[in-house]
Structures are given as structure tokens and as C-alpha cells.
């Protein structure tokens, strides 16, 4: 029986790796993948608590998070394709259309 603290610490580590990925990388696609990593670490928390409390509600919420992640990936990748068609780049440093 693994203590739930182990799961929480592991999920924290994966979440932080995702945060570092979002902040450091310049490629938009890899930034989106880091966001997927962060969403997934939250899922690990939900399922671990669901197992700990013997309450399946946590798993239902994990399914909802996966749904939101799928929607987010579809819209995000659509934006990337539209951006690449107009600006020919996926580099966040060159995407500065909103700069005044």
C-alpha cells in the first residue's frame, strides 16, 4: 500500500516539469504538450484521492478533465495551424501580433 503523499509529491513534480516547459520552450506545440502534462498530473491527484477515499467521484472528475484537455488540444492546434498559415512560424518569440 503506497501512501497517498507519494502520489501527491509525484504529481507535484510532473506539474512543475510542465510549468518549466511552458516557461522555457519557444515552440508553441511543445508548450501545448507541456500543458497536457500539467492537466494529466492533476488527474493523478484526483484518481489517487478517489482510491484513498473509496469514492468513485474523483474518477468522474478525471474523465471531465480529459474531456477539457481534448477540447483544449483541438482548439489550440487549430489556432497553431491558422497562425502558421499567416505568419509561417510556431515560435512564440515571433508571435507578437498583439504588441502595440
Amino acid at each position, binding site marked *: 500500500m503506497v501512501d497517498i503523499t507519494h502520489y501527491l509529491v509525484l504529481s507535484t513534480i*510532473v506539474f512543475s516539469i510542465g510549468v518549466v516547459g511552458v516557461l522555457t520552450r519557444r515552440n508553441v506545440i511543445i508548450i501545448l504538450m507541456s500543458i497536457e502534462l500539467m492537466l494529466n498530473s492533476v488527474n493523478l491527484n484526483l484518481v489517487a484521492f478517489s482510491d484513498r477515499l473509496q469514492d468513485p467521484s474523483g474518477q468522474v472528475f478525471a474523465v471531465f478533465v480529459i474531456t477539457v484537455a481534448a477540447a483544449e488540444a483541438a482548439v489550440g492546434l487549430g489556432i497553431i495551424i491558422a497562425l502558421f498559415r499567416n505568419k509561417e512560424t510556431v515560435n512564440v518569440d515571433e508571435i507578437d501580433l498583439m504588441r502595440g
Partner: protein
Amino acid sequence: MEATLFYILATMLVVFAILTVTAANPVRSAVYLISALLSMAGFFFLLEAEFVGAVQILVYVGGIMVLFLFVIMLVSVRDMESQRRMSRQWKTALVLGIVLSCELVFFVVQGAQVFSADTVDQPFLNLESQTGNTETVGGLLYSTYLLPFEIASILLLVAMIAAVVLTQKRL
């Protein structure tokens, strides 16, 4: 047995997560992320959440990651590799990430006794003994969480329409 599996899966997950963030080639990064998601699915099976584990593999690995790979192929990979990988702020970002990680671990360890074995005296109604995991989750989705379930379906519809509109030629 469970502890051994946990540590093997945890090592795999952390290593693949770091490789996802650091890989130069986006295709490699996507393959590493697939491996990380598969180890995460292993955790779900370990935690007796078979339905979520199966959904993880089907939706994430089978759906989302294939979508990612398609988009990576659509936008040219050639000029990505030659450019600088990291942005100029990477040192600050790394320090901030480590600080965030330490803070979160500190609070988790501080609050560890809240989740420890003897605080939850009465477990919630456990249906898993009578029915399967999928049946339990499905039953909850269609009873207690019916409204969020419907909202999620609308969200998916909106996302689908948005993706179609965004990828049109003249946008």
C-alpha cells in the same frame, strides 16, 4: 509489489516528462509525451481506476497525441530544429519552477497527516465490490453528474466547431 510498481512507474513518468520538455525535435517530444501518458495510465490501473486508465490510453494516446503528430507534420519540422530551443528567460523559469515545486512538496508534506490512514474513519459508499469500475463511473456520470456531463458534451461540440472554423483557408 505495489510499491515496486509505483517506483518503476514514477521513474518512467518523471524521466519521460523531462525528456518531453527538453527534446529538440517536436516529433521526439510527442513520442516521449506518449510514453509519459502511458505510464500515467499504468498509475490509473494501479489505483484500480480501470475506466480512467482505458480512457487515458484511448483518448490521449489514440486521439490527442495523433492530432499533435499530424499538426507537427503539417507545420514544417525542418526549420524548428536549427533554431534556439529555449527562450531567453529559461534560467529564471527554471528557478521559478524549482521554487514552485519545493513549495508544493513542502505543503503536501506539511498536510500529510490530514490524508493519513486513520483520519478517514468511514469510507464512502463503495460500489466497486458489487459492480465493475466502468459501471460505477457510468452510473455516477448519468445520475449525480448528469448536468456536468451534458455541459462537457456542449464543450466538445463548441471545440469541434471552433477547430473547423479556425482551420478554414481564408482565416
